[in-house]
């Protein structure tokens, strides 16, 4: 056997920086999980391991370093859209919408009905494509690759529709304060969207058979990473993770925005609070989102302008917002996504603070849930919490 002993100087240097290159005690060692691990995505967790069990986990974000909040203070209101939407990549329409909603509220605009309809459709399309992205990630973590590849292909259909609507595939820069940037392309696009929704709905059964009703999935998720109701509320866990512990909180129902009060949909709630419950809540929500899209298409887009008619909008770079502040939030697939915008009356925001849902369930909650878990459970807990590192390190 080769001599694996670490040189003394290196060991002392490492200990000075609170790292241990040799086991602290018998069978205890430190393991750096991520950012190179596929499951973590620009994120790292330092695990103190005892054999196969995790003794302690320390979350280590900070691999993105983009400083969007500082940059947003140095750019005009409309330019910020192209910046802030990069916060959450799989669901880039959410930051656009919360920022636009907050600015709309500060200015006091009544957004036209047509724009409201388009914004609701875009948000729901973003949700469905984000579920597809999540199925891909989650399937891969437990070794089921086929549903992930299907999901990626179905997401591609939405990306094509988005490209036709907005000109962008992943980053849309579409929802702007006062409405949307351009009108829907026409009836053909609406027909294509309906076809896509029906197609994915018909494929849900396949997903059930291969992923959600799979023995492997149950074996890997049942009883893993359990949290209770009180813990979840104290840690401000939102979204499907909160609904999996039995709290029926959904921003679309509790603080309604856009067309949601007129739509008929259910908020799925489960009580167990383990990874399995979180997965199943997401499965039911995907079905509800497809149902919402169908309803919206049945409603049809109302006629009228798609952008607010305001003479101030003629000079966009010098567009000034009256002094004030507003907080707007929407329900994303990760949870409650909010933005707090403060204006001092100039043409740039004075402060933009984004509340990413992973700020709460990606740091303290993750550290707590990982305690006592097996090493193989780390990706499962990460993916069922649906941790999005850019929410934390904006």
């Amino acid at each position, binding site marked *: 056997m080769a001599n694996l002993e670490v040189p003394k100087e290196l060991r002392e240097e490492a200990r000075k920086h609170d790292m241990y290159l040799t086991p602290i005690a018998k069978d205890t060692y430190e393991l750096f999980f991520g950012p190179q691990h596929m499951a973590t995505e620009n994120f790292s967790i330092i695990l103190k391991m005892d054999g196969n069990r995790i003794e302690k986990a320390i979350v280590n974000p900070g691999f993105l370093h983009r400083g969007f909040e*500082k940059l947003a203070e140095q750019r005009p209101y409309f330019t910020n859209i192209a910046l802030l939407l990069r916060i959450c990549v799989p669901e880039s329409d959410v930051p656009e919408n919360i920022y636009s909603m907050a600015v709309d509220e500060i200015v006091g605009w009544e957004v036209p009905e047509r724009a409201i309809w388009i914004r609701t459709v875009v948000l729901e399309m973003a949700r469905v494509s984000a579920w597809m992205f999540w199925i891909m990630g989650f399937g891969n973590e437990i070794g089921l690759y086929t549903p992930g590849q299907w999901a990626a292909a179905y997401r591609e259909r939405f990306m094509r529709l988005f490209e036709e609507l907005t000109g962008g595939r992943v980053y849309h820069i579409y929802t702007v304060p006062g409405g949307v940037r351009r009108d829907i392309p026409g009836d053909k696009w609406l027909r294509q969207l309906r076809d896509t929704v029906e197609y994915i709905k018909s494929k849900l059964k396949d997903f059930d058979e291969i992923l959600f009703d799979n023995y492997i999935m149950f074996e890997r998720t049942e009883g893993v990473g359990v949290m209770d109701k009180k813990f979840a509320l104290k840690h401000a866990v939102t979204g499907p993770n909160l609904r999996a512990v039995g709290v029926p909180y959904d921003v679309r129902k509790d603080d309604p925005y856009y067309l949601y009060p007129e739509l008929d949909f259910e908020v799925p709630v489960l009580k167990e609070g383990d990874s399995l419950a979180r997965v199943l809540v997401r499965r039911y929500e995907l079905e509800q989102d497809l149902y919402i899209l169908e309803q919206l298409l049945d409603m049809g887009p109302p006629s009228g302008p798609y952008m607010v008619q305001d003479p101030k909008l003629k000079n966009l770079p010098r567009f000034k917002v009256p002094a004030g502040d507003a907080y707007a939030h929407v329900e994303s697939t990760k949870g409650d996504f909010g933005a*707090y915008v403060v204006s001092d009356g100039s043409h740039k925001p004075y*402060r933009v603070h984004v509340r990413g849902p992973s700020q709460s369930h990606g740091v303290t909650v993750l550290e707590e849930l990982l305690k006592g878990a097996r090493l193989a459970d780390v990706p499962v807990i990460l993916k069922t919490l649906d941790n999005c590192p850019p929410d934390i390190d904006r």
Partner: protein
Amino acid sequence: MAVNDNKVENKVETVEKAEEKKPELPNTKEGRLVKELLEKAPYAEGSVRREKRIEFKVPAERIHEFLELASERFEMLMQISVVDWLKENQFELVYQLWSVSESVHAFVRTRVPRENAEVPTAMDIWPVAETYEREAHEFFGINFKGNPRLGPFILEPREYEKHPLRKDFNTLSYVKTIYGDDFDRYDESKTNYVI
């Protein structure tokens, strides 16, 4: 607070009334919630902004006491936003609370001077405050008394000491000092402009 007055006057008539004759609050769910909290905490100022949005102003020395009271009705702390009011030489901390049972969002505002800013931690009330406080400490340099994990969180140590989200932190000059000659994107002579 001059900045908010403008907006409030435009939007909600009820707040105008409340400011003229202090105790009057609308007879809604929000109004009753504000009244209930103000009865227990007479040192705070409260108002209704609009449906599902209420607002409190609390002096910094009693913020912990107020948050403890508020936590009975507001189960979740959504975030702690810090605004750097450079001209007034103050930091404004906005504790954003959400009540799951009442479906009401509350802004709890407090102001501290910029020099040696210190607030008691809210970790004992909502454990999630730990993360928000680490972030606020790192980006603004506010000291949260009682939080054991204040230190480099997202940033590297050399950035951590500078508090980059403060208004008097100049990103461009910082980048120039760190990257020096390698950074020719913003050359003053504009001969080496990359973008």
